[in-house]
């Protein structure tokens, strides 16, 4: 394992500290319990958005703290959801009195820890709503399982619900908007090579030179199945098809197409995937009205990508376009 780190146990502490130093104009970092807070939080009268999860997915979530997106982000250990006291502290710090929306990726750990924190916050008279993100079509959705994971769609939920909060929507409306994005977004990912969790010291799975893993999540966990290496167009089709059919996309609809790098894949390759996905959607009569390409929700240095499609309506489009000023996503201001 070769990493630019000092001590596997200090990766999150040191990285978040550096993040705070680099973006002191936008955020403040509370070291213990650890959370990242929007510089001017609490923003009077505004519903606050708090998200979080295991570290190792940067820029998610800390990179999305700022005007128009999150009010606070709560980083856990690498790939380990944060604890209730961290989430509670962030929730209290972000709350202006208008209530707090928790954006939670659907993993048992995240769900349980955010659930506890929400109970504790409510006991302190802070109103909390939870938006559960579960956009990963690689996972079978069923009442009897842990259900679909929250992956790429999380970025879009945070941006669009964040814009709704920024324009002054109330607590229920912001939560509803987050839910609406989640209902209209689907994702599927592929790994060409695994990542190595610092404290584990070994790749989280082994792939042969000629194998890829289809349907991976964002925690270095293996995917749904392993297939022989294919070219970029073939892989793109394998990811896009289930996304499109699960969304039930019809000709004439507008979408946002998001090609996300898992951390170790060059941008040039993401654009090759984007090219194919955009073409296939165009052939289906679907209009790609907005796009996002880059490393936004990663698995450390994993090689691979995910494709996310969000069905857009006019309101979501306006909220997507609304100004945002965070370390990782910035426009309009």
């Amino acid at each position, binding site marked *: 394992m070769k990493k630019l780190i000092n001590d596997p146990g200090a990766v999150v502490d040191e990285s978040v500290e550096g993040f705070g130093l680099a973006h002191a104009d936008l955020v403040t970092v509370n070291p213990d319990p650890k959370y990242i807070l929007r510089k001017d939080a609490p923003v009077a009268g505004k519903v606050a958005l708090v998200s979080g999860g*295991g570290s190792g997915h940067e820029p998610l979530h800390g990179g999305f703290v700022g005007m128009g997106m999150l009010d606070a982000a709560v980083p*856990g*250990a*690498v*790939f*380990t*959801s*944060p*604890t*209730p*006291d961290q989430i509670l502290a962030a929730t209290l710090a972000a709350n202006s009195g208008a209530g707090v929306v928790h954006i939670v990726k659907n*993993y*048992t*750990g995240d769900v*349980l*820890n955010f*659930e*506890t924190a929400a109970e504790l916050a409510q006991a302190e008279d802070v109103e909390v709503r939870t938006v559960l993100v579960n956009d990963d079509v*690689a*996972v*079978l959705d069923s009442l*009897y*399982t*842990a259900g679909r*994971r929250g992956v790429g769609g999380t970025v879009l939920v945070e941006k669009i619900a964040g814009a709704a909060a920024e324009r002054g929507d109330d607590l229920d409306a912001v939560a509803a908007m987050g839910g609406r994005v989640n209902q209209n977004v689907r994702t599927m990912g592929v790994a060409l090579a695994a990542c190595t*969790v610092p*404290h*584990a010291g*070994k790749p*989280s*799975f082994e792939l042969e030179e000629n194998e890829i893993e289809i349907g991976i*999540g964002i*925690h*270095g*966990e*293996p995917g*749904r*199945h392993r297939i022989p290496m294919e070219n970029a167009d073939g892989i793109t089709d394998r990811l896009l098809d289930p996304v499109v059919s699960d969304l039930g996309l019809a000709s004439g609809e507008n979408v946002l197409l998001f090609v996300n790098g898992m951390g170790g894949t060059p941008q040039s390759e993401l654009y090759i995937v984007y090219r194919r996905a955009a073409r296939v959607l165009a052939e289906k009569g679907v209009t790609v009205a907005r796009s996002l390409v880059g490393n936004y929700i990663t698995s450390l240095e994993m090689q691979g990508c995910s494709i996310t499609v969000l069905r857009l309506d006019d309101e979501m489009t306006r909220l997507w376009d609304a100004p945002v000023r965070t370390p990782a996503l910035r426009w309009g201001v």
Partner: protein
Amino acid sequence: MTVGLDIKWALRWIALSAEAMAEHRVELIELDRPIGDSDHGENMDRGFKAVTEKIAEVLPEKPGPALKLAAMTLISKVGGAAGPLYGTAFLRAAAALGDEPEIDAAALVTALQAARDGIVARGKAEPGDKTMVDAWTPAVDAAAAAAGDGDVRKVLDAAAEAAEHGAVATEPMIARKGRASYLGERSAGHRDPGAQSSAYILRAAAEAAK
């Protein structure tokens, strides 16, 4: 009739659990690798190290408060799925024990049941879902069955042994809860890390009574 379990047992249980987590840290990470995200051993070790520190700081004087302190520390230090699940287990056990200075076999069985029920309440897993429930459920059943002659050591031994078998028995299972469930059928053939850590913790409870 044997004596009941007191604060010494509770403190030893926690200390031996912490030792077991440190000793098996890498093994539990390795179990979590093929069907999870390679952090279970790290999480448990971090959590029990924190519990050990907290116990040394607070010096609780009865089993119930000791387990409650462990629970609160696990909840605030572990994160992931295991943190809230173990936290709830210890919290419910502590509540069942209340402020009693000594625990007899019946109370012990009740506490173990409460712990298991806490895990199920939080995690909604059923036996056979390939989770720590598959260690706790046979452990609780065996404990209840062994409680007849009122020997707490027999109860704990039975629980530990059943948990160990339960952990092994998760190997062929197809996971339906937790991270391993994302793998579907590919989760078969691997032991569940949380069931294994549960077996270690219940074995620590039995050793602590010796």
